[in-house]
């Protein structure tokens, strides 16, 4: 029997790990979460495991257990650094792993973000991506003072009053990604000519105004930053439900989905593939990665004990939007291959606690997958697009 296509594997990094009590684990470093050294150590460990990329969570307010509003809790990690700058800090001291910071598109400037990610691509030699997120939170809007959103409870979000706002935010996000991408293309790869004879540094015919005009913003261009090494750094988004999946289908290279089981995988993947066709992208490779929170060890009992200990410290069983896996690396490998069969191209694992669950991924799960012929034994490409099997696109403005 032919071996399955290789899996793609990423980890999602957030503070001390995804479990709210992760910072209290014996090996956690809760006092160092704001230091460069912590992030270098964690991402270097992911790179030792040959993972495709890391994502770095971010938001424009203090972390909160209550969606959309502050919670004033004292018992969980609060305070964080800008994810793009964490990625930049790590870029020169890593060499192969992709770096995908989260950017909130609702309150930021596509022009700034486009050049920031392009610059991350330069600093990392072609390993940059960006995970885009919207913010409907009223308190985050108040930090900027330029827009006023209604207060939305979780229950409201499902109702039509909120649905209009959320749909608008995702439409804005699609415009945002369009602008970011056009700016990356606004310099053709060969725009810089350094022609001493004529004294021209660039060929202005190879620099392009993007002239984007939309409902939320207009951007003239070109970028101030030349086309990044990958041409188009990788764009990722969480594809939670129909509105969000449409953004992935229209605009992203990688979507993160949260299925509960293999059957759920099939349904979610079918919906995104259908949206992808509707968006005219049927021929393009769009990755669909399954998100899983993992509490992982060499055996099921050890993993279960750690999860139970963390839940006890937190005072409640951990719940997540993603499925939670607690067990041994071999069992997780079975599950991943099963869900891959159902249509996923990769996984983004959210380590319950750092470093334990991260090391279990890199030192137990990865060898297990390698043993089954399902994961790389060495980095095969210096760029993130290369690792994901995405070709380097020509600039849309390049004249054939």
């Amino acid at each position: 029997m032919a071996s399955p296509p290789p899996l793609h594997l990423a980890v999602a990094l957030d503070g001390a790990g995804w479990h709210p009590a992760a910072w209290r684990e014996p090996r956690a470093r809760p006092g160092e979460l704001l230091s460069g050294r912590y992030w270098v150590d964690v991402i270097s460990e992911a790179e030792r495991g040959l993972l495709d990329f890391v994502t770095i969570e971010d938001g424009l307010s203090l972390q909160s257990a209550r969606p959309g509003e502050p919670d004033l809790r004292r018992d969980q990690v609060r305070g964080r650094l800008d994810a793009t700058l964490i990625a930049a800090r790590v870029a020169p001291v890593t060499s192969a792993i992709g770096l995908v910071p989260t950017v909130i598109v609702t309150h930021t400037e596509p022009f700034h973000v486009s050049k920031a990610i392009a610059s991350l691509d330069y600093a990392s030699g072609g390993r940059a991506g960006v995970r885009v997120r919207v913010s409907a939170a009223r308190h985050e809007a108040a930090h900027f003072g330029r827009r006023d959103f209604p207060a939305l409870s979780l229950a409201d979000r499902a109702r039509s009053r909120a649905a209009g706002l959320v749909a608008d935010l995702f439409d804005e996000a699609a415009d945002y990604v369009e602008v970011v991408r056009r700016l990356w293309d606004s310099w053709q790869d060969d725009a810089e000519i350094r022609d001493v004879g004529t004294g021209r540094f660039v060929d202005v015919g190879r620099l392009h105004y993007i002239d984007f005009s939309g409902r939320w913003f207009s951007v003239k261009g070109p970028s101030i930053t030349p086309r990044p090494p990958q041409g188009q750094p990788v764009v990722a988004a969480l594809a939670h439900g129909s509105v969000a999946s449409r953004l992935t289908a229209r605009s992203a290279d990688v979507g993160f989905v949260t299925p509960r089981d293999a059957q759920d995988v099939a349904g979610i993947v079918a919906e995104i593939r259908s949206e992808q066709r509707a968006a005219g992208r049927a021929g393009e490779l769009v990755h669909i990665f399954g998100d899983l929170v993992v509490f992982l060890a060499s055996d099921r009992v050890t993993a279960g004990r750690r999860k139970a200990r963390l839940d006890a410290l937190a005072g409640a069983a951990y719940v997540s939007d993603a499925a939670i896996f607690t067990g041994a690396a071999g069992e997780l490998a079975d599950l991943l291959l099963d869900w891959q069969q159902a249509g996923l191209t990769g996984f983004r694992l959210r380590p319950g606690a750092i470093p334990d669950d991260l090391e279990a991924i890199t030192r137990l799960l990865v060898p297990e997958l390698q043993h089954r012929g399902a994961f790389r034994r060495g980095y095969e490409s210096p760029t993130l697009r290369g690792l994901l099997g995405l070709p380097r696109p020509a600039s849309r403005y390049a004249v054939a």
Partner: protein
Amino acid sequence: MSRPPKQVHLAAHFPGVNNTTVWSDPKAGSQIEFSSFAHLAGTAERAKFDFLFLAEGLRLREQNGRIYDLDVVGRPDTFTVLAALAAVTEHLGLAGTINSTFNEPYEVARQFASLDHLSGGRAAWNVVTSWDAFTGENFRRGGFLPQDQRYQRARAFLHATWQLFDSWRGDEIAADKESGLFLADPRAGTFQYRDAHFDIAGQFDVPRSPQGRPVIFQAGDSDEGREFAASAADAIFSRHGTLTAGQAFYADVKGRLGRHGRTPDQLLILPAATFVLADTDSDAAELAHQVRLQQVSGATAIAFLEQLWNRDLSGYDPDGPIPDVDPVAGEHTIARGRASVRMYRDPVATAREWRAKAEAENLSIRELIIAVTGRQSFIGSPASIAQEINELVQADAADGFILVPHITPGGLDDFADKVVPLLQERGVFRTEYEGSTLRDHLGLAPLTRAGLPRRAAS
């Protein structure tokens, strides 16, 4: 008894997107690859410089309605490169220009606070203002800011970020695994700022960084700009590097500090300076002329002339005489995205001076532009340049210099190897970093939790 000599402050400016930067030289490398930034930062740190500086411009320059192609074009994102440089340096301050018009305080504050954390206290911010609709075309709000409100907005922006930086005292994170207390004060980061420009409130999400606030630079030269610097900046990036002009500027700005309850040691004056270094003074003079020829091609000379004349002069011969027509008065339209055109406050009078000089000295357009624009600040042997820098600092024409090499990225190497040791021998420049933060390098007292400089004896 004479006072001990002042210590010289030195910084490295990454070569910019104007004609100072000679891209046509065979030694010229990339203006965008990270290795170029790492090279210059490495040289600056080896030489124990205070900081590296990155400029910014948010729209490609245009002249005569097209993108200006004679100078280096293309720059990275300031924050991203500075954060990456934090990985390859240990002591060097990391300073960058960030615009206060096309950004919002919450985001800029979290970026600078993050950079300060990630670099262990080495962040600095050159606060600039712009108002032009030309740059605004790249941003959500467009050209929203009237010119006469730009300093008002910059001041408000800075005060808003200060409130954000100071919203964490620095002792709120307990991270006590035993008791389970992570955040001692769940209201840490609370802020509210409201004025004509901003109405923001909430909780800032980046805890207090090592320096508390980034070091603040200001570069404006107008009366309003100087007053803004005197009220709020830790250092001025000035353009007055000669003895007479430097002393006048130095005295003027330091004289303004008292009105803001500040003392002269709380604001450093750091002019930008270029240099041409060779083994002997005469070799350096010859080399300086060659560099000027590289910097001012015939096409560049015409472009400079157009910036003053404010009209298309592409039909003129750069090796021929100065145009006998006068500049077009009124709003500047020929060159866009370029702050320097505003320096010509009376273009007609300046044009007359240039014409008179060209006629008296029999200069072509190119020769004139070489003569009247951008001569290098320091030209000479290592000993001459070291002496000149030290004299200017001791004479209170400056507190130090921000050096702008004309070659990317190796243009500072010789200065580091040959001039810096001579300053160190004179005892006016550090031989090792004594502190860990940029404030330490600049001799600025650490900030109190309220954002005030801490005084030794009080």
